[in-house]
């Protein structure tokens, strides 16, 4: 009788522990994100969200990635984040973005067996594109939307479209990705510096 334990296989069904872990890290991530969004309440600061959220969220998510061993965990995570953003009034785009980005991020991480550092960084960067979903409604159909508000005058419509010029969209998108990558690196730095020593990895 050799009672030696082996770790569970990677392609097994998601267990209770995994699902709880997703919930816990989602809660931490969203609390941090909401705290940062308070800054975004000054609406002109809103684009800053695409910088700060991925960056600081990286610390949480890198810890989460150490617990990810099975396919689906990252997807569920982004779906939940997307659903939360939807429910808190950011529209349903983050939700759909969440499904797509999460799947891609999950596949990327999976291709590195959930342990390759490079793949993890890339995967988190992709995951962060979800945040761009919050900004999308501001760009989509902007003329159509403001044309219904003709009472404000054509100046207003013109000014509005000037603020949300289409070319700023790719910048925000790129920002969320680049700062996602940077956030992942920051998170890994923290893992080494603190969390491994604290014994919670």
């Amino acid at each position: 009788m050799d009672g030696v334990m082996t770790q569970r296989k990677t392609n097994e069904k998601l267990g209770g522990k995994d699902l709880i872990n997703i919930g816990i890290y989602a809660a931490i991530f969203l609390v941090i994100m909401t705290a940062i969004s308070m800054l975004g309440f000054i609406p002109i600061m809103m684009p800053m969200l695409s910088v700060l959220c991925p960056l600081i969220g990286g610390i949480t998510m890198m810890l989460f990635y150490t617990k990810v061993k099975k396919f689906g965990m990252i997807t569920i995570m982004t779906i939940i984040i997307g659903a939360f953003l939807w429910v808190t009034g950011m529209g349903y785009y983050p939700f759909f973005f969440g499904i797509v980005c999460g799947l891609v991020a999950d596949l990327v991480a999976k291709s590195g067996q959930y342990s390759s550092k490079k793949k993890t960084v890339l995967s988190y960067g992709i995951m962060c594109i979800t945040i761009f979903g919050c900004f999308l409604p501001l760009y989509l159909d902007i003329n159509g939307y403001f044309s219904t508000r003709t009472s404000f005058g054509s100046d207003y419509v013109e000014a509005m479209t000037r603020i949300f010029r289409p070319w700023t969209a790719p910048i925000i998108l790129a920002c969320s990705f680049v700062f996602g990558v940077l956030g992942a690196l920051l998170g890994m730095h923290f893992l080494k510096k603190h969390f491994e020593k604290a014994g919670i990895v």
Partner: protein
Amino acid sequence: MEGAAYNPGKLDRGLIMDPRTKLALLVTVTTFALGGAGGRRCEMLVPILCMVPFLLLLTAKRFKTSIIGMILLWGSSMLLTFANTRGMGGFLYYIILGSCGVLGRFLPCIMMGRYLMESTTVSEFTAAMKKLHVSDNIIIPLSVMFRFFPTVLDEADSISSAMKMRGIRIGGKHASKIIEYRMVPLMTCCVNIGEELSAAALTRGLGGEVKRTNICRIGFRLQDYAALALCLIPWILLIMDVVK
């Protein structure tokens, strides 16, 4: 029936609606007020839809939130009108336009979201998800998340107390490390509590192969049908538009 005395959804919350109705309202408000779908045909409906969340908040006895929201919405649109009639220009104008534009679009959705969150218990929510045939793989993390929010906030609060006692403040001499000082204890504490929570949940049989039951009772009532009917109008208009 004696057992019916315990209902996790039974709290003093004013008008009770089925969470599914609330979700339908949320989808409708985000689609038409935020997304601007439907164009001119729905123009008349948008202001009505925008008012729905505020009225609902009133029915749920969240007077303060509702009134603050209404003042914000009204104030921003007044400011816009004011800025336009004055023919303001320059940087300030753009800031006002940007702020008010964003606020005006997002506020109804945010309020609708708040209504959904504040008037629904976690059990009702999971029961609704169950009825919508959402997989347990999503329901379980979601309910953990809702249960964990207060814990994270609690921990964050204790940590900021500890920081105050140590004289670590934004603007102090440790400003550059403020994120590190906040994040490291927060993560450590939350992860430890999370570990204990998973252990407790697993010893009570979470993660089995059988289908989970849910004892929370939800169902449609008169007010739900009324709200759903309201939701249907813009969708029908939209479909008519597309069909044409």
